[in-house]
Structures are given as C-alpha cells and as structure tokens.
C-alpha cells in the first residue's frame, strides 16, 4: 500500500491514531512482517466504520467477511478461497459460545489466523475479547491490538456536525433548561428489611450542565452548543455510535435545545441469572433468542428473562434477536462491572 496517507473522514476524527497504526501493520506485512490486527471496542463504538475505511483504502488487496450471528460449524469459516493476502473479518465475537464445547470453532479459527502468508484484520466486542483473552489467551494471535478510544466532547461535536452544512443546525436558547436548578434535592429509596419498610433518604444532585452554563457565561448560542455536546458526551460516555443516536433522538430538525437531550437513568434491578443473560447479550451486542437459549441451557427461563430485560429498557428485541439498547449501554456496563460479570 505504500506510505501514501489517506485523509481521515471527519466521522473517524477520533480514530486518526488507530487508523495510522493499522496502516503501519499493513505496511509491515508488505515488507514481510505479519502481525495480525485485532480492533477492539464496546458496542456502537465505531469498529465497522474503521473497517469500512480500511477496506476503502486498500480495496484491491483485501477480502472482507462479516459474521452477523453465532458460527456453530467450522465449515462456515471459509477463508481459503480468496487469493487476496489481506483478510478483514468483522465481529469475531460470534466465533464462540460461552458453554461447554463452545470454543471449538474459535480454536479452529485461531489455527487459521496463524497462517503467516495472510494478514488478518479482525474486529471484536470488547467484553468478548477480555473474556477470551483471559480464557484462551487469544491476544497472542493478534500482536497488534487496537482498543478504540472514547471520544472527547470536541470529537463528538466535530463528528456529528460533519454531516451538516455550516449553520444548518440551530442551537436554541432553552427556556426549560434555564429554569433548572444547579442543586436538585432528590430522594433515594432505602428498604429496611427488619422494619419491612422503605424510607427515602434525601440527597442532592448537582446539575453539571447547568453549572457549566452559568460558569462559562459565554454567548448564548455558543454556550447552548457546548452544553448540548457536553450532555451528549456524558450520556454516551464518549461512545461515538451512542452519541450519534442520542443526537438523532434529540434533534428537532433544524433545531436542538439542551432540554431535548435526555439523560435516561436506569435503575437496574436484576437477579444474578438475569444479569448473566444480560452479560451474554452485551458480549455479542446482538444475539438471537435461540442462540441465547442454547448458551444458557435448560436451567434458564430465557423467554421470561428477555421480557424482564426488555421491560427495564435495557435491551430491544428485533427479529427474534436481543440487542443492547444504546441509551442503556453505560448503565448496563456499570451494573455488570459491579457484579464482576464484566472484567
């Protein structure tokens, strides 16, 4: 591919360094040094966008495969056909199942990627990767590991606004937002088992967005814009895909105001089995109900658990598949980390 640098599209503005690292790995491969690449990120964080970009850059030299559901048979992995020496593979987390006998396909795949004549550039769900790296030490098969970083507020702003013309979006003064208070008193329900009662403990919550607005004292329009993207950054936790979805849901084209950016808080209440199923969904981002039942086994009432997860707004069910809702991603990860289901 040579050393010619291709200009990074603005939607990938936060991934310049990562794309440069992949370019280096490709250049190394062409000079005889094969270092397979693993691009790792949480759901919605931009793995596919990067792969699209890589494919565009070296279109003539690559073959691309994408897994969209769990691969259960070794024969489904056909990588020997293409004569191209660089292979891009999306969503390799679909190559295993967290059950007894669920690693055979992945073991077979790891044998394939050990072929020094082909450079494999793969993408992985962060939580599947972490799990598999501890269990099977898959990191040693992919010496170049690229963990996609979180976007800053500025990167989110630039990435989102790149899809619009200058001044196309109107950031309006928000009367509802202006009425908000810097400190809000809230009540946290605490159940006391011995009394069989629930009491509400008062606590205060600082409205950071509003505080920032007050402290900055910038011009109205600039402040609103900053507040909106600050809020989107906080809600999305720097995840560009989630940020884009939050933006789209908040935008009343061509206007947007701070109070439209909703910070959905999820008070997750799940038992351990439900949390484990949620962890399986998070590790895949999207998984069919049948695959979920197969992994979980007969001890789980998967249908009921999916209903519970869906009712709490943590997942959505589309075409008999469970998908982590982008708005809930941050809360789900925090919850599962607390339970140590996510390492």
């Amino acid at each position: 591919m040579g050393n010619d640098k291709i200009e990074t599209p603005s939607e990938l503005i936060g991934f310049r360094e990562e794309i440069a690292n992949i370019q280096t790995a490709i250049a190394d491969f062409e000079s005889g040094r094969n270092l397979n690449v693993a691009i790792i990120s949480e759901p919605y964080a931009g793995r596919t966008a990067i792969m699209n970009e890589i494919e565009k850059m070296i279109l003539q030299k690559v073959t691309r495969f994408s897994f969209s559901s769990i691969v259960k048979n070794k024969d489904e992995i056909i990588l020997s056909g293409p004569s191209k020496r660089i292979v891009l593979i999306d969503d390799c987390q679909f190559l295993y199942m967290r059950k007894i006998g669920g690693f055979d396909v992945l073991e077979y795949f790891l044998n394939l990627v050990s072929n020094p004549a082909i450079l494999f550039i793969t993408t992985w769900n962060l939580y599947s990767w972490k799990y598999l790296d501890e269990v099977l030490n898959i990191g040693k098969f992919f010496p170049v590991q690229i963990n996609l970083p979180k976007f800053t507020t500025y990167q989110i702003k630039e990435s989102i606004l790149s899809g619009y013309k200058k001044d196309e979006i109107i950031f309006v003064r928000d009367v509802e937002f202006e009425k908000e208070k810097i400190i809000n008193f809230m009540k946290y329900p605490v159940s006391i088992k011995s009394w069989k009662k629930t009491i509400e403990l008062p606590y205060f919550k600082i409205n950071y967005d509003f505080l920032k607005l007050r402290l900055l004292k910038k011009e109205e329009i600039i402040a609103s814009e900053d507040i909106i993207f600050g809020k989107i950054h906080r809600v999305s936790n720097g995840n560009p895909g989630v940020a884009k979805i939050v933006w789209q849901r908040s935008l009343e084209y061509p206007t947007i105001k701070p109070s439209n950016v909703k910070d959905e808080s999820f008070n997750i209440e799940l038992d351990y089995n439900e949390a484990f199923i949620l962890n399986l969904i998070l590790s895949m981002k999207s998984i069919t109900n049948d695959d979920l039942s197969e992994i979980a086994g007969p001890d789980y009432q998967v249908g009921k658990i999916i209903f519970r997860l869906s009712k709490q707004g943590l997942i959505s069910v589309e075409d008999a598949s469970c998908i982590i809702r982008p708005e809930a991603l941050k809360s789900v990860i925090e919850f599962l980390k607390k339970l140590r289901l996510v390492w």
Partner: protein
Amino acid sequence: MADNSIVSMPVIDTGTIISSILIILIAYLCIRVITFILVFISERAGQYRITVKMVLPLLKFSIYGYTIYYILIYILKWESSQLILFGGLLGAGIGFGLKDLFADVIGGIVITFEKPYQVGDKIKMGDYYGEVSDIGIRATKIVTPDDNLVSAPNYLIFTQAVASANAGASEMMVVIDLFIDSDSDAVLAMKILKESVVTSKYVYISRKRPFTILLKDFPFYRRLRAKSYVNDLRYEFEFESEVTRRAWKEFSRNGIEAPKVNILES
C-alpha cells in the same frame, strides 16, 4: 480538717453520671448510624464491598476510644494522678477476672490494625468457617454457610491460627474435585472440566487469578481438580455446585464414568 489522702477522689454526682451515659449513648448511636450507612453503601459497591467495610472496625475503635477519653477528661475532669489511680484499679480488675474482656479488646485493636482478616472476608477460625460480618470491641461475628451467627472472642487471634480465604479481595479460590473411573478418557474429562469452569457464570479469571486443571492417578480412580476463582466469595458454594453439575452432565454424555467399587484381594 486536712485531706490526708494521696490522690483526691473526683466528685461524681448525678449530673456527671447522666452526662456520661448520654455521651456513651450518642457514641453508640453514631456507630449504629455509620455502620448502617457504610453497610448500605458497601452492599451497592459491588467489587469494592469489602474495601468499604474495612473502615468499620477502625471507626468503631476510634469513636469508643475518643468517647472514653472525653468522659475522663471533660466530664469527670480527671487529672493525671487520678488517671494513674484508675489505671491501677483497672489493673486490679483485670487481675481479678476482667482479663478475658481486656484480652478481647486488645485482640480487637490488633485485628483492626494488623488486619489478619477484615469485615467481609471468608475465614476459618478454630472450628468455624464463614464470612466475617462484624469485628466488635469484644468479639468477631462470623456467619457460617448454614447461616449461623458465631461470636468468636477476639483474643483467639493470639491463640489460634486464622485462615482468610480472600484476604480483603472479593474473589476467592475454590477447589473443585471430581473423581472418575480409571478407564475413562481423562484428557476429554479435563477439557470438559476446564470448559465447565471457564463458562460458569460465577467464575473470575485474570492474569493474577488464573485457573488450573489438574489430574492425579489413584489405584482405582482418577481425581480431576479445578482450582479457580469465584467472582464473589458469597457464591463459593453455588460456583462449586454449578461446575460439578454441568461437568457431570457432560461427562455422562461422553461416556466418562464415576469410579467403580473395587475390592482389593489380599
């Protein structure tokens, strides 16, 4: 009339007694409230549960210590000579029968600062095994797997070895033994046991907390041993049970059998 006593005794009137009782009561209430809040926070802190609970014994001893100091100095207004007298009386009291109580208090202080175990740890002390639910002034409370609350006097720390299974961490190692017939495929059995462990919903694996699968031959059977970490020590037995159940289910599907009864002829 001249006062011939070496140390003048402090005047203890009703007001002093009421004030002292009130201060002790306030200290007790403070400890109860702080304990409630910290336990509430810790139970929601996930992996940091034990870290949050760790400060409880220290807080208790500090509050009780300061309460005694406050009563002696500011309520009873004792001077150094009176404190020495009190020390002497306390020494006599210890000699006459309070020595166990005193040993417990000292044991509590040693446990607080040396931390051989902490609130939330799984320990084995004497004949008892369970989770430490409280380290008090006099005794350590342990909740056994059968949900019995055992109060072990703190002085045991001086006389008995204490084994802490997790030493302040949330995860702890669980050793699971399965026994199979000598004629069964041991390699396949090891693979199944390994996958039972790593796919368990309770497992915790990291570079510092790896898992190991071991095989040992005995005259009439083979022992498979899995050493791995459960993500929260409270799931110790659930983890063991889940791995055993799933492994045996897979063993029977693959023709791996339990040891047969053998008779050794002499």
